[in-house]
């Protein structure tokens, strides 16, 4: 198993290359190792989401290479990239993006079904994930009946369902109140500690930044600062999360 999970070399993403080029990402070198709990910060328009999209294989860079767990995803064909994302990358979105017509359990199970995992294994995995996020009693509830915090916890469970190499979270706490945000961070911190799961967040949220062990600051598409912080990321008690 590779120690390095994400390795980007000289990555650039340019919009309007033939008229007025705008460098959303400009020559970014980034190296993330297994088990990191990293926050990507910067002002609006600094390229945080673009960089996450590139690392997540949702977008292609105009220059450079992105190596995920030893595979250069910039060289993958569309079909292979979809399969790669399914098996290796977990996504958590700002607005939860659960499928509203599926229950919480089905939303998580959906990923496992896409992977063709057996029913028994699916049931075990889903039960384990709902235990971890503290929502065992909400498994058969539809997203509309869950609070924002609960929905985002289900989204985290969904991201982890396929046992990915790492989880990309784009502003995961932006739509949450402070208690829900704290609960979510606790869960992610716990998963990071217990399962050595790698998390990379884009965020403006000071609460997330404070919990991150590494903070990368982007300005105008370039890495302006990359600092390791003191490990304050100790999960609080999960009680009262439900």
């Amino acid at each position, binding site marked *: 198993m590779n120690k390095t999970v994400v390795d980007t070399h000289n990555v650039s993403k340019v919009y309007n290359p033939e008229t007025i080029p705008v460098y959303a990402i400009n020559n970014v070198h980034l190296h993330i190792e297994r088990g990191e709990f990293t926050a990507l910060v910067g002002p609006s328009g600094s390229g945080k989401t673009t960089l996450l999209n590139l690392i997540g294989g949702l977008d292609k860079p105009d220059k450079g290479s992105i190596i995920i767990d030893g595979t250069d995803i910039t060289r993958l064909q569309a079909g292979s990239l979809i*399969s790669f994302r399914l098996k290796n990358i977990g996504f958590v979105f700002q607005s939860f993006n659960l499928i509203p017509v599926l229950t919480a359990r089905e939303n998580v199970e959906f*990923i496992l079904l896409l992977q063709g995992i057996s029913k028994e294994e699916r049931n075990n995995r889903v039960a384990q994930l709902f235990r971890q996020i503290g929502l065992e009693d909400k498994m058969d509830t539809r997203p509309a009946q869950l609070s924002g915090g609960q929905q985002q916890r289900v989204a985290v469970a969904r991201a982890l369902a396929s046992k990915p190499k790492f989880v990309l979270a784009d502003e995961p706490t932006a739509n949450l109140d402070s208690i829900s945000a704290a609960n979510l961070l606790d869960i992610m911190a716990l998963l990071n500690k217990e399962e050595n799961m790698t998390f990379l967040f884009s965020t403006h949220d000071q609460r997330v930044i404070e919990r991150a062990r590494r903070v990368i600051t982007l300005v105008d598409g370039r890495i302006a600062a990359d600092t390791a912080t003191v490990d304050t990321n100790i999960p609080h008690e999960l009680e009262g999360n439900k």
Partner: protein
Amino acid sequence: MIFLLAWRNIWRNKMRSIVIMLSIALGLFAGIAVLALYKGMMKSRVRTVIDAETGHIQLHNILFKNDFDPKYIIDDKENPLEKIRNIPEVKLAAPRTITQGMLATATGSSGVQINGVIPGLEYEASLLKRKIVEGRAFDESRKNEIMIGKKLARKMKLRPGSKLVLTFTDTTGTIVSAAFRIAAIYQSDNAPLDERNVYVTMSDLNTLLNLGGEFHEIVVLLKNDESLIAVQQELKKEFPLYQVESWKEISPETDLMVKTTDLYSYIIMIIIMFALAFGIINTMLMAILERTREIGMMAALGTTRIRIFLMVLMETIFLTLAGTPAGILVGWVVIFYYGRHGLDLSGMGREMMSSFGFGTMVYPEFPVEKLGGVMLIVTATAILSSLFPAIKTIRLQPVEALRR
């Protein structure tokens, strides 16, 4: 899961889905109704042709129909009528003496086909008695009585009791004229035939034609339509010197009409479905536009394009197929009702209907044998309608869809 997702997706906007299902049901009902109406009309037309015009089979002297020369007779010596009546499938065999002639009155004249009939048999063979709208049936104690069609009567300004003169050539080629008195005016569902055919008794006409017991035509009615081909073959073998024709050969326009009606009804059905397809496409595009972000998310998480394509395809098929049973059920109920009580089209005018050979009362019949074809058209509509929205969906780039 994609199956479940597609099913639940169609119930996201219940009102919209119900409206589209009702449209499909209505479209299907309209299609089935057209098929049933055409089937009923065609069946009634065929029935009229068989029961009131040609019978199932007709036999003639092989030369008779070339120019309807009365000398080409069916010789009674071989006793063909008895032989035909002895065939178990035969319900009735009636002879007719036929000649072409001129009907004249003081005010004008018209070319007609003069049919010499045995009244008792003809009333069964062509339901002539039932068609009488003015006057009375033949009185066999009276000589030289005639029945003429309503259209001809109107044209020649004739009514029951009026006198007219028929002129024609006899079997020796001599011109013969005789005066006849109108016993009745009849009206069938085929105005052009009414204008052309007049009926006299066979005994009167045979005397004028210099014929004994001979005749020109045998009209055969069968107990059921299905034995037509078998009996025709049997008669051809039995009477190789006679022309043995089925109603399809005697009235090829009716046979053609029956065959082409199937095609026309499918064309109408396809037009209805074509209009419906735009409704389905519109609904599905709206449904997809509303879910762009969600579909982008599904793609981002690793759902393959084919799965997303299948999801949209299934949603459309579900919507279409959910409306199908309702359409078929309503169609069946309505057609069952009108099939029993009849659909009165007299509002369109009896004259107009009869000029095309149709009666005003139509008994629609549920097109069971065409249900497969109808379902195929509906399914094809569903699949074709879903293609555009489904292709539009798989062209979505997750990164762009997620931004919306």
